[in-house]
């Protein structure tokens, strides 16, 4: 049984649009098959007639504008189709479209064009950052934050400076012109007297430090001491 050449191939053969190998095959077939040769000749005639008619297009036709309008109509149609398509199909189409893009373009679309999908996790992360920051600020003492900062600083410097190199083990009494404080394990207890500045501070090697304050209204001297043990 002879297998005839399909009409699509014959039409493409007439327009010389078939690849070389398939064109050779069609040519060999139409030489031997009267029916296919007759259909091919009808396609040729039809093509000649349409090409002759194309010369009668209206004057002043703007091909560029026509092309832009057609493209816009096609996009509109696709978008309308997306709106009525089921969710899963939309997602799979989006994924297909993403997969067809080169890697660099996928990355830039993720940042700019892909905002419609990426804003939710970004907003969630931003919200969590705000919540964690607020909770930290409200609940964690400044000294702990400083201690953590020292540890992170040490890690960032390749562990060359340990926390112990800054604070010896055991309680440390510190006296500065700002007051006295007791430090241990990175935490600090700083003594301050209602915002007053100490007149003098002193350290005793037996394990205590004192700060002298004076009340400017009453003139009363108050000496506050902390003990390491």
């Amino acid at each position, binding site marked *: 049984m002879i297998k005839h050449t399909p009409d699509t191939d014959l039409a493409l053969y007439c327009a010389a649009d078939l690849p070389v190998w398939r064109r050779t095959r069609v040519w060999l077939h139409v030489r031997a098959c009267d029916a296919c040769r007759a259909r091919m000749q009808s396609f040729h005639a039809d093509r000649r007639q349409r090409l002759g008619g194309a010369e009668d297009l209206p004057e002043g036709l703007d091909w560029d504008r026509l092309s832009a309008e057609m493209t816009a109509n096609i996009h509109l149609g696709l978008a309308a189709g997306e709106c009525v398509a089921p969710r899963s199909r939309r997602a799979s189409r989006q994924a297909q479209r993403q997969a067809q893009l080169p890697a660099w373009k996928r990355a830039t679309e993720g940042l700019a064009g892909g905002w419609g999908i990426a804003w939710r996790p970004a907003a969630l992360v931003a919200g969590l950052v705000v919540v964690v920051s607020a909770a930290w600020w409200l609940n964690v003492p400044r000294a702990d934050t400083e201690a953590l900062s020292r540890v992170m600083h040490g890690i960032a410097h390749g562990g060359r400076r340990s926390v112990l190199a800054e604070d010896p083990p*055991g309680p440390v009494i510190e006296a500065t012109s700002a007051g006295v404080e007791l430090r241990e394990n990175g935490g600090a207890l700083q003594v*301050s007297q209602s915002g007053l500045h100490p007149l003098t501070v002193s350290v005793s090697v037996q394990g205590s430090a004192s700060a002298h304050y004076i009340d400017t209204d009453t003139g009363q001297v108050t000496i506050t001491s902390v003990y390491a043990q």
Partner: protein
Amino acid sequence: MRSKAKLGGFTAALLAASLGAGALSAQTLSRKIDLGKDSPVTLVSDSWGDSNVTPRGGAYLVDVHAALTLRNSGQRRIRSVTLAVYAQEVTPGGKGSVSVPSLDVAPGETFSVRVDMPLLRPLGAAAGGPAVEVRLDGVLFDDLSFFGPDQLHSQRTMTLWEMEARRDRKYFKQVLETAGTGGLQKLMLDSLARQADRSQPGVQMVRGRSTNTELEKEVQFAFLDVPESPVEASSGTSRIAGNEARAPRFDVHNRSNRAVKYLEIGWIVKDQQGREFLAASMPAELSLAPNQQGPVAQDAALRFSERIAIQSMAGFVSGVEFADGTYWIPSRAALDDPRLRDLVAPSPEEQRLTQLYRKKGLVALAYELKKF
């Protein structure tokens, strides 16, 4: 649209929860005030302001801000009071004290004491007990008699302050009598200038060995001789590495005819720029018979800022307690030594009087000196 609303609500709920957690963690402070049985001071009122307890790691941070009004219920005038503040007695950071020297509270009069102090209390400590307890550690009267449990050795400290106060008041009164208000004014201005110029570089103190890994060297103390001092210090050394000095030890000689049971030595440090400052006091409990010599050692380390490299050290005897309960402190003449004058901090009484002069003027100061 609905997902936006859900996300906003979730974030707001988390934020509200975290804000709520911060507010709830600052609990109201449970407290106790114990002035002792038969105490010469009684509580008139107490206000705890914004004192609170906050969980912090494995402990509670007890932030005490209290104003206590006390009455002298005894028969003698009160000169000093020390209150011990406990959140936990044996934990570092669990106790502190507040002292008010230079008082003159007649029987029946009231006076106030402010307590501003952060303390630590372990999470598991004495559940149900007060988070903070204020106890009377001692009261010193105008006849130098003392009342109180004295767990923080406040009797000695307050007696030394009172002796310094008497010395300074006597000196200022003398100047007022001999040189008039002009002489007193010059004295006050000198004192204020010294207080402003007195350098107090930061110093850390740790008991035992510190962590400095630099090579140590042994450096001799140069002792400043205070001629009138009943105890003479000599042959002192300390180990120095960079900005750290540790393990001071020295010999002391009791050149008085009374036994000594306690002494304090001022530890002076000089850096490479030639600046000197009083770094710490070295107290020592000892038993030194008349004309006897003995060693004193402290297992402690002082560390200064990295900018300070210790060049040399000096010391001077700044206070002595005899076995009979009497005390010695340097005289004003001894403290006028050019080397000591700028190093030794003024007494609490001198600080109070200079502030009185600055705020209310010479007439108020002269009136105050004539009171007692």
